[in-house]
């Protein structure tokens, strides 16, 4: 390390020697940086998993444009959309297909507990609106009162879901009607429910008699090849009579949903704050360590000033210290955060994972934050007056 820094800065690694001279303080500083890193990693992990979970249902379907009610901030929220707007939209030359999408939560009462399944009602005669992975298991949905189940549903034993096949279906009762599960698909627990289920629109309406086939939750449209969804969506906003509707490209709908989850929902805001607090904790700890270190070495720095060393030299010492703290604090923080995220993922089945993007972001953020605190700490250097030395 000493040699590396010597090569990097082209001088004695004074920052390193200074930091390691006081072992206890050095260890405490590293622990502090590592702690801040863990804090940020865990919050980022949760935010990422929220993003994954939010975007997951969008991957079940294939569409170019999505029409939703003005208060439908996410897939599962808000009012219905009248099917007549779908027909109005389909008059557009670029719109080639349309379908209604129903969504509600179905409760599966099991011996030990109730599972909440976010259930989508789709038109099984229009598999083009389903993703390729979904289309195959969904072929069984034409059977009345049938469904396919998210095999990663939280609270279900994996061997039980693995046993669900067309030749060995599993039945359960929901809303007084027996549903039979013929197949499974890969979903994954989210924040809104324990898992997903896919049924036909007919089955959905049997489950929820209060809902009407004329008013699905969302309308999905597919466009002719080559048509620009944003352009067509803008055109449809003019054509469709109900001006309050949210008509936007499918990709934009997913983006808006995500932004809503991260910035408007309390959970998203809390985790966002967690990241900021982690960063602040890190900056404060590093600032504390570096400014104490500068204060402790004022007479040494004054001596160096008397010898002809300039401001740049002192900045580089503090920067060196910041770099050492950032890099050496990051490593244990990264290791602990990995273990913590693994433990949390297995406890919650949330898609919590360390990503390369997170690691790089946090590493760069750590070094930048450390340098920033270091830069603030150098203000104390002004007090080093070589005239006081004699």
């Amino acid at each position: 390390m000493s040699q590396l820094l010597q090569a990097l800065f082209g001088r004695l690694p004074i920052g390193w020697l200074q930091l390691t001279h006081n072992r206890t303080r050095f260890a405490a500083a590293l622990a502090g940086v590592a702690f801040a890193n863990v804090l940020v990693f865990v919050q980022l992990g949760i935010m990422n998993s929220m993003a994954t979970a939010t975007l997951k249902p969008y991957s079940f379907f294939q569409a170019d444009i999505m029409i939703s009610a003005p208060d439908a901030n996410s897939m599962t929220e808000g009012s219905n959309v009248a099917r007549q707007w779908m027909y109005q939209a389909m008059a557009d030359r670029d719109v080639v297909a349309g379908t209604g999408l129903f969504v509600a939560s179905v409760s599966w009462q099991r011996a030990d507990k109730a599972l909440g399944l976010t259930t989508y009602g789709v038109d099984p005669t229009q598999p083009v609106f389903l993703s390729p992975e979904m289309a195959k298991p969904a072929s069984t949905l034409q059977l009345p009162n049938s469904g396919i189940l998210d095999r990663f549903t939280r609270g279900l034993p994996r061997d039980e879901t693995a046993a669900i096949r067309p030749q060995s279906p599993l039945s359960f009762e929901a809303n007084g009607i027996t549903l039979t599960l013929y197949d499974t698909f890969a979903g994954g627990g989210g924040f809104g429910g324990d898992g997903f289920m896919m049924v036909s629109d007919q089955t959905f309406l049997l489950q929820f008699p209060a809902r009407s086939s004329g008013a699905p939750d969302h309308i999905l449209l597919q466009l002719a090849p080559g048509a620009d969804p944003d352009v067509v969506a803008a055109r449809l906003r003019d054509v469709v009579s109900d001006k309050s509707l949210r008509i936007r490209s499918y990709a934009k709908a997913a983006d808006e949903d995500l932004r809503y989850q991260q910035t408007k929902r309390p959970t998203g805001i809390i985790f966002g704050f967690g990241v900021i607090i982690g960063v602040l904790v890190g900056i404060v700890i590093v600032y504390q360590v570096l400014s104490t270190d500068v204060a402790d070495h004022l007479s040494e720095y004054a001596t160096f000033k008397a010898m002809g060393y300039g401001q740049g030299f002192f900045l580089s010492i503090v920067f060196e210290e910041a770099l050492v703290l950032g890099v050496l604090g990051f490593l244990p923080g990264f290791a602990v955060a990995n273990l913590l995220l693994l433990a949390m993922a297995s406890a919650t089945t949330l898609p919590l994972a360390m990503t390369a993007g997170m690691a790089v972001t946090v590493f760069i953020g750590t070094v930048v934050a450390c340098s920033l605190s270091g830069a603030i700490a150098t203000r104390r250097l002004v007090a080093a007056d070589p005239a006081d030395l004699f």
Partner: protein
Amino acid sequence: MAEDIPVDVSGLNHWFGRGEARKQALFNVNLKVAQGSLTVLVGPSGSGKTTLLTLAGCLRDVQEGSIRLLGQELKGAQSDLQKTLRRRLGFIFQAHNLHGSLTALQNVLMGLQVHGRADPELQAKAARHTLTLLGLGDRIHYLPDNLSGGQKQRVAVARALVGNPDVVFADEPTAALDRESGATVVQMLKRLGQVRGTTTVMVTHDNRILELADRIVTLEDGRIVNDTAP
């Protein structure tokens, strides 16, 4: 020609404090120090010796009068000029002011690295050589905490001299040294003056040094009252 008089003080006045507490420490001081000489400042406590040394050594801003150091006017000097000049000086303080996290060798290296990047091998060799001259050849990897007071002071001397300074400013450098190493240090300075033309301005009360001095300047209450060549 300015280099023949590396330190040229004229009409120097200096005050400390402000308002009511303002107090003059130096009164119309004039002093020309010849190159290669060993000049000793003596005088009672509070007479202004240290003040004069810090002003001439470019560590304190000149208020009134003029100091030409190595041909450069210090009054109103910018910090860049101060930095450049300081690199050509060697300071030996009363307190050793060594960096506690650096070994003896590393402390001495700091006196070389101020001049920029160079071959680390050569620098280490020069530093080791200077330490050996001062009798510390077997202590080069010691931290200051593990050195005696006199050894620390000798490391500080090595740090000041390793960069071959043009002028050495020293304030009671031998106070912390025993008889023998005090003599070593002064003889070294004296020889540097003869061989390399290094100029030394030193505050001291040590009689043995006074015998070696080329010139003794006595200050009293901020004024030069006596200036003799023994």
